[in-house]
């Protein structure tokens, strides 16, 4: 059994030292996923595994046998951008663009976590079924993705515009 990447079956590497990130970039030439720090600090390598966001730099590829991986290439394509990709363009959600694939993968999964009711450090009422998502809450939930250009305000705008029902932009500012 191999691993599924953006819907395509892929063989696992023979060497267990190969990270999921290196498999994607060097093995499959899916260079959308970026290597930033390679030590779990920056979030540039964020991909989705069965819909959950993880850091592909800290993941050994062999650990993900039988799982389904989605990268930025699996979310959108030329001429058929994911709505969040389009929103990043419209809201200046990037300058250099290096952190952008990780930001977008992270945000797509973050919305699912909100819908599921996963609490965050800022959640006031742990018993509440629905979590009100202020701008501060959005920032907290995206704090695993750094942007050295400082495009965080645009990133927040892009996410809030794309997912208005989940994020209630400005509700608790």
């Amino acid at each position: 059994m191999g691993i599924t990447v953006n819907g395509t079956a892929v063989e696992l590497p023979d060497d267990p030292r190969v990270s999921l990130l290196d498999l994607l970039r060097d093995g499959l030439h899916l260079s959308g996923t970026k290597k930033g720090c390679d030590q779990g600090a920056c979030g540039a390598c964020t991909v989705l595994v069965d819909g959950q966001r993880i850091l592909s730099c800290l993941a050994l590829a062999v650990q993900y046998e039988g799982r389904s991986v989605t990268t930025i290439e699996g979310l959108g394509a030329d001429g058929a951008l994911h709505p969040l990709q389009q929103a990043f363009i419209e809201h200046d959600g990037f300058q250099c663009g290096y952190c952008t694939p990780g930001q977008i993968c992270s945000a797509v999964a973050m919305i699912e976590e909100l819908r599921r009711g996963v609490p965050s450090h800022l959640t006031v009422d742990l018993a509440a079924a629905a979590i009100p998502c202020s701008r501060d809450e959005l920032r907290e939930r995206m704090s695993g993705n750094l942007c050295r250009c400082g495009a965080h305000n645009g990133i927040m705008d892009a996410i809030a515009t794309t997912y208005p029902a989940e994020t209630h932009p400005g509700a608790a500012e």
Partner: protein
Amino acid sequence: MTPFTYVRATDAQTAVRLADSRHPGVRYLGGGTNLVDLMRETVERPTALVDVTGLSNEITETDGGGLLIGAAVRNTALAEHRLVRSRYPMLARAIVAGASPQIRNMATVAGNILQRTRCAYFYDQAGSRCNKREPGQGCDAIDGFNRMHAILGASPSCVATHPSDMCVALAALDATVHLNTAQGERRLPFADLHRLPGDEPDRDTVLQPGDLITAVELPALPLAARSAYRKVRDRSSYAFALVSVAAALAVENGTVTDVRLALGGVAPKPWRPLAAERALRGQPATEAVFRAAAAAELAAAEPLRDNAFKVELAQRTIVAVLGELAENGLAGGGA
């Protein structure tokens, strides 16, 4: 990374057997968020990995009204569990105060417990001496930049802190660790799992090579329904604790009837301040008593060059958290 073999175990007995046949140099692999990083830095150089993420990832109620948490439960899954949020809110809050959402999705409960210090000298294989990494080498942290280091429980050979938030709550909650070993199954109070460095700082826990954590059990603890976790750090998210406090408090007619406390960021292990708890039980729930209790614990603090501020910070954080819990109780508030 140095070469290693990889094998996946689907149950605890198989994992222990696989590990047993690969000694020495074998390590269990959870989510990899710490071990893979350390292997890349060649701080850890295992020759074999036994992947234990296929072990139990279930959270079930025990007959006694507690919770049994499988070792492979991911941190996010534990924090979002309905019963953890309602019965042990300090645990849910401790987990979401740690790391980032991506890391919490990967990290397992057992991996979180067995993660290693983030002391920069421990990581700096090429440039620093470290007794935890290379026993007998010396410690560059003691006279180095030690703002993040321990004020309690350290030794002349190591002053590193335990980095986990989740473990601070587990210490306060009187958790029990379930183990599977080559000699069979056994249980261990969580408070006895991690050890102080003494002159063997390379041994973080009392576990023997091959011992496997299979589950963590939380006892029924009604007072934990009103509990809190407060973490003080250099930035408001995605940073390790300078000081953290997990606390549960029961107050009746203005008197502290029961209390659980644990501290993070101040010691080589999740620190259970029993002196402070003793100074609180049966006493009036007043700020003066809270302050005296914190002082009783911190009297033993031995700050280093850069971290004396932690003594006052721990003192104030304990008082603030207890004050908050007492106030909520008087106001008739629930969890």
